[in-house]
């Protein structure tokens, strides 16, 4: 197995180097996805199946899609704005193309070399320091695994990692959910308002790009391609069911709210990519769903104080069911959070006010099977047609 570890470690370094040395951003992103798969394997070798599960769902699946999607939107914009003045061309190139770097490097070659040297020395120093820290590590002050093992009988949950996350260190998890909430609020506030299509685009080239994005997503992919449609129709329920299973399994074996949430988000992303309009008709449901996990967690954490217990200290005998309840709500919220950060990305072109929920995924897929074109939100379709004319 040593050979396996050595190969895997070197492979990870190679993949990371591939990400950094790629002039082509697409190649860098594919390398990054590959790195995610290798990292999941490394977690397995480190006896951390939970992390492997999370990395498989998030690193290899979700992040790769997010990056590819962003790249496609950026490049589509660049194509649409092909006749820009040079200054702005260069700005756009900053995001996508390789030539901009070369152009920027040209003025100040010596300066650039100096920078490279300084940064290289810094990295080398950090590498040496980290490796030295590894070799001269101090003895562990406390034996955490045995402490966890002692606490497990009272934790109300068998799986040590879930017990740590939602019982022993539930403070961290509560704050993490708050961080997610903040992230999604910022993300939502950065999206383009749906009614600003015309005002925002002073030239038709941008409208063209948005229109192209709209057509590419909604009508062509999901509507016209029967194989893609059939495949995703069968895949999405499976992903959702697996998400539920992973959530349920989290109490006794690897799994839990985060991995399950990532899977639910992935189901939404698949639906979205296949061209189903997963817009929910209820805007409030999304808002509610986003805060649901945090609210439930906070309510449970605070309400135990009425019984005279400290914050987040579950009553005896209730811990198991409370933890599962919190986890279920968290799954829903985390899934929605990740999904809405994906769906609401500005410049996505297609229905900027798309809302999503599990229910609407299902309704979207049934509508989508009838005809892919006809499932636009009523408020938005008129506008899109106006753009077409």
């Amino acid at each position: 197995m040593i050979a396996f570890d050595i190969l895997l470690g070197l492979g990870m370094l190679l993949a990371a180097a591939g990400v950094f040395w790629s002039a082509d951003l697409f190649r860098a992103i594919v390398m990054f996805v590959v790195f995610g798969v290798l990292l999941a394997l490394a977690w397995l070798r480190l006896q951390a199946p939970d992390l492997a599960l999370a990395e498989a769902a998030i690193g290899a699946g979700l992040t790769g899609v997010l990056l590819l999607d962003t790249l496609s939107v950026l490049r589509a914009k660049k194509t649409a704005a092909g006749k820009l003045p040079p200054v702005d061309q260069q700005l756009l190139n900053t995001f996508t193309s390789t030539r901009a770097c070369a152009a920027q490097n040209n003025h100040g070659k010596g300066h650039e070399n100096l920078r490279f040297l300084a940064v290289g020395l810094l990295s080398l120093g950090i590498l040496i320091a980290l490796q030295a820290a590894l070799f001269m590590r101090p003895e562990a002050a406390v034996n955490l695994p045995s402490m966890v093992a002692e606490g497990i009988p009272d934790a109300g949950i068998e799986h040590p990692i879930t017990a740590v996350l939602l019982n022993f260190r539930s403070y961290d998890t509560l704050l993490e959910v708050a961080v997610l909430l903040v992230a999604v609020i910022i993300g939502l506030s950065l999206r383009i308002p749906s009614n600003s299509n015309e005002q925002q685009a002073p030239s038709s080239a941008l409208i063209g790009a948005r229109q192209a994005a709209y057509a590419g997503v909604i009508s062509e992919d999901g509507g016209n391609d029967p194989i893609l449609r059939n495949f995703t129709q069968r895949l999405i329920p499976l992903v959702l069911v697996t998400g539920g299973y992973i959530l349920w399994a989290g109490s006794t074996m690897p799994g839990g709210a985060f991995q399950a949430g990532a899977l639910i988000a992935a189901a939404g992303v698949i639906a979205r990519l296949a061209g189903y309009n997963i817009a929910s008709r209820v805007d409030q449901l999304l808002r509610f769903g986003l805060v649901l996990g945090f609210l439930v967690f906070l309510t449970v954490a605070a309400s135990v104080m009425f019984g005279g217990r400290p914050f987040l200290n579950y009553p005896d005998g209730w811990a198991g069911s409370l933890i599962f309840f919190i986890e279920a709500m968290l799954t829903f919220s985390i899934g929605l959070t990740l999904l809405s950060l994906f769906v609401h990305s500005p410049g996505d072109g297609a229905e900027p006010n798309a809302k999503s929920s599990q229910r609407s995924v299902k309704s979207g897929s049934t509508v989508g099977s009838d005809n892919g074109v006809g499932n636009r939100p009523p408020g938005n379709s008129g506008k899109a047609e106006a753009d077409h004319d």
Partner: protein
Amino acid sequence: MADFLTIAAIVLLISLLLGLIRVWRGPGAADRMLAAQLFGTTGVGIVLLLAVITDNGALFDIALVLSLLAAVAILAFVRRLKLQQSAADASSLSTKNDTAANKKEGQ
């Protein structure tokens, strides 16, 4: 048997690292995506082998998740091509639409 399975896992890892070369070389985006697809499949194979070697049933779940999401990247990639193609079409059409857009702006 465990030794044999370990060797099998190592060979799979080697074949996976060979795929890395194809990701690097390309030349087309499609070739890179295909190599990434191979990574997903081989990853599932390795996880299955590791599950049997370490006798840990939970690892089957990980293989399941990996195989569920194997096609997601390809879906994103196909959509990517669509976007770029239609954007190219749109920009070639844009001169035609200029008057309409200007009219809209004036309102």
